[in-house]
């Protein structure tokens, strides 16, 4: 008995010798549709209370990191992808494990094992090379690009020197993005409409109704990043061999001929299924400081990427046996950005991004070339108790826009109150472009957050 007591004391002493930090926050937010949001006008589009907890425990050169969330969703809009969250059937509660990893650092080598989130690239809130982590795609109201990222289960081995870092990833299990499958989700009826032009749609109801890659070694993902940091510039190279995080949708007509008795009339519906496809990417980025400015460049090449074919070509152009859900094309993405921090607490960032599909054809759902510009202005006043942020994106092809105005006021060191307005507008002549289709999600959101 004494031996066990001594062992217990020794273990307790070890735990006490560790440096353990807990960080928590409680966020409550509600968003409502603006007058231009058509059928969503005055409707709640967001209603969540989120408890977020992080534990970091350091022991010598090792660290354990765990971040999870408990979410109550008044709209029942929570969904899962089978691994990132455990969600109640009605979508009102979710338990999320965002990250959970062991990190160890030696003299030159470092190792991180477990669920982790990593950011690649120099772009702000735009995906160029940042393909490693899938995202929670269930919300567009007051959504945050970084908060929507989902952890991947991976092993990361790093080679570290003073000015360079090389990370190699092995991702044994594919994690798809979370889709708005919950019926209470305001995006649900838009992404998975029950009918189109009077024709019923039989869409997937659960994440595993999609064809997911098998859990086999040969279905693993691999990734590599090499970065260097110098006075002249920060440079990175990226390589990725994995899966596209979003499924490609297959539309199939389902005709049941009437027999004049039990089923008097012929019924015509469309069955919707989806499958995930392999994706390859090579990319590079640079951040170059120059006085008050930092110039950012980023580019990526996706060879033979699968692109969604549109519903019309699937249903009417091809025969049943040769109906492709996707076509493989080369894709090039490029970004040029600028950060400017003049005196007075201002931060101004501007970005231009171009996205082209080589040898594009009309069967594809997307355009052959899309480009847009973004601008963000941030200013903190009253000794950083009030922060005003204005940001916008302009689709340079169809001139649709997305804009956001956010006011953050620090009531105390621990409590922040936020008022966020999101406005999506179509381009001239009602063209949807990149942002017009989100018009019905123009909203104003109130958020309160306490950190402890």
């Amino acid at each position, binding site marked *: 008995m004494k031996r066990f007591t001594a062992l217990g004391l020794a273990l307790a002493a070890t735990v006490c010798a560790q440096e353990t930090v807990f960080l928590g926050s409680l966020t409550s937010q509600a968003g409502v549709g603006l007058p231009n949001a058509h059928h969503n006008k005055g409707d709640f589009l967001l209603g969540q209370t989120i408890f977020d907890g992080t534990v970091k425990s350091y022991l010598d050169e090792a660290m354990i990191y765990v971040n999870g969330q408990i979410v109550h969703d008044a709209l029942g809009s929570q969904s899962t992808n089978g691994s990132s969250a455990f969600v109640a059937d009605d979508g009102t509660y979710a338990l999320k494990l965002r990250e959970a990893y062991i990190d160890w650092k030696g003299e030159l080598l470092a190792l991180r094992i477990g669920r982790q989130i990593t*950011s690649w690239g120099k772009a702000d809130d735009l995906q160029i090379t940042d393909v490693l982590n899938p995202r929670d795609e269930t919300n567009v109201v007051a959504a945050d690009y970084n908060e929507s990222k989902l952890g991947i289960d991976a092993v990361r081995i790093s080679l570290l020197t003073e000015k360079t870092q090389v990370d190699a990833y092995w991702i044994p299990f594919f994690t798809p993005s979370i889709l708005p499958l919950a019926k209470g989700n305001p995006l649900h009826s838009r992404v998975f409409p029950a009918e189109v032009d009077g024709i019923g749609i039989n869409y997937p109801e659960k994440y595993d109704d999609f064809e997911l890659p098998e859990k086999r070694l040969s279905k693993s993902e691999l990734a590599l990043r090499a970065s260097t940091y110098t006075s002249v510039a920060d440079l990175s190279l990226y390589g990725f061999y994995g899966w596209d995080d979003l499924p490609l949708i297959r539309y199939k007509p389902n005709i049941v001929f009437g027999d004049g008795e039990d089923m008097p009339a012929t019924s015509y519906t469309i069955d919707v299924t989806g499958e995930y496809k392999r994706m390859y990417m090579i990319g590079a980025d640079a951040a170059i400081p120059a006085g008050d400015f930092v110039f950012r460049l980023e580019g990526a090449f996706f060879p033979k990427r699968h692109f969604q074919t549109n519903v019309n070509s699937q249903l009417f152009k091809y025969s049943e046996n040769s109906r492709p859900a996707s076509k493989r094309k080369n894709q090039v993405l490029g970004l040029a950005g600028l950060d400017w921090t003049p005196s007075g607490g201002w931060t101004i960032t501007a970005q231009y991004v171009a996205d082209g599909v080589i040898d594009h054809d009309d069967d594809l759902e997307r355009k052959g070339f899309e480009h847009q510009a973004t601008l963000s202005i941030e200013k903190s006043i009253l000794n950083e108790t009030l922060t005003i942020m204005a940001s916008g994106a302009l689709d340079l092809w169809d001139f649709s826009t997305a804009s956001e105005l956010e006011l953050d006021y620090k009531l105390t060191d621990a409590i922040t109150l936020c008022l966020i307005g999101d406005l999506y507008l179509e381009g001239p002549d009602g063209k949807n472009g990149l942002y017009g289709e989100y018009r019905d999600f123009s909203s104003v959101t109130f958020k309160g957050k306490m950190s402890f």
Partner: protein
Amino acid sequence: MKHTFFKLAVSGLIFATTTFAQSANEIAKKAHDLPTGKTSSGTISVTLIDKNGKTRNREIASYTMKDGSTDKTVLVFKTPRDVAGISYLTYDYPDKADGSTVDSDSWIYLPAMKKVRRVSGSSKDDDFQGTDFTYDDLGTRSLSKDNFAILGEEKVNGVDCWILEAKAKDPKAKVSRRVTWVDKKTYVVQKGEYYDKQNKLQKTLTCENIKQVKGYWTTQKMTMTNVQSNHKTVYEIKDLKYDEKVNESYFTVSALEREQVK
């Protein structure tokens, strides 16, 4: 953000313009070059006090290291909790032989973004994290940015001081003039006054708990008061250690990204 531990910015220029100028430059240079140890670490406690007496607190872990002529600094926010984990890494370089300044290399790690961002290393006259101190106030402002003069002599905190004026050469500088009281024996600043673009008194600095720690003169408490807005910042250093082993890997971008710096 070189020498975060209260080595106040008093800097000099080679060109003499008054009868005191030569010694003013010498004084400024000696104050600028006060030794601060090969390494240092400690916890910075910042208290912001508004005109109604309402206080807000920040706690920041700080590590510094000299690497040849480069001064490396890592700051990690501990509180308030909503910014905990935000980290800064800065490499400060000495002026060039012709007196021109060299921009710092600076990075910031934002835990919410899981990302290290390169940030401009040239803006030193901005407020440091909502405090009444600027980055220049907390570091060693480049000697080439000001013209110096001695305005007189006065006893402060019980010690004889030179009253040293540093006039910004840049007419657009937010702080047009700094007047500091420099201890004649130790070259440590005892108090200061800062004037805005219109040459109106904007901020006053008081220094307390000035003592030698492991042989290095250190100001352990500073209070900067903005007399125009009646806002005040108290800046204290705790658990200060000089010349003790600091994990050199802390001063790398990858350490920031791995959240390795405690």
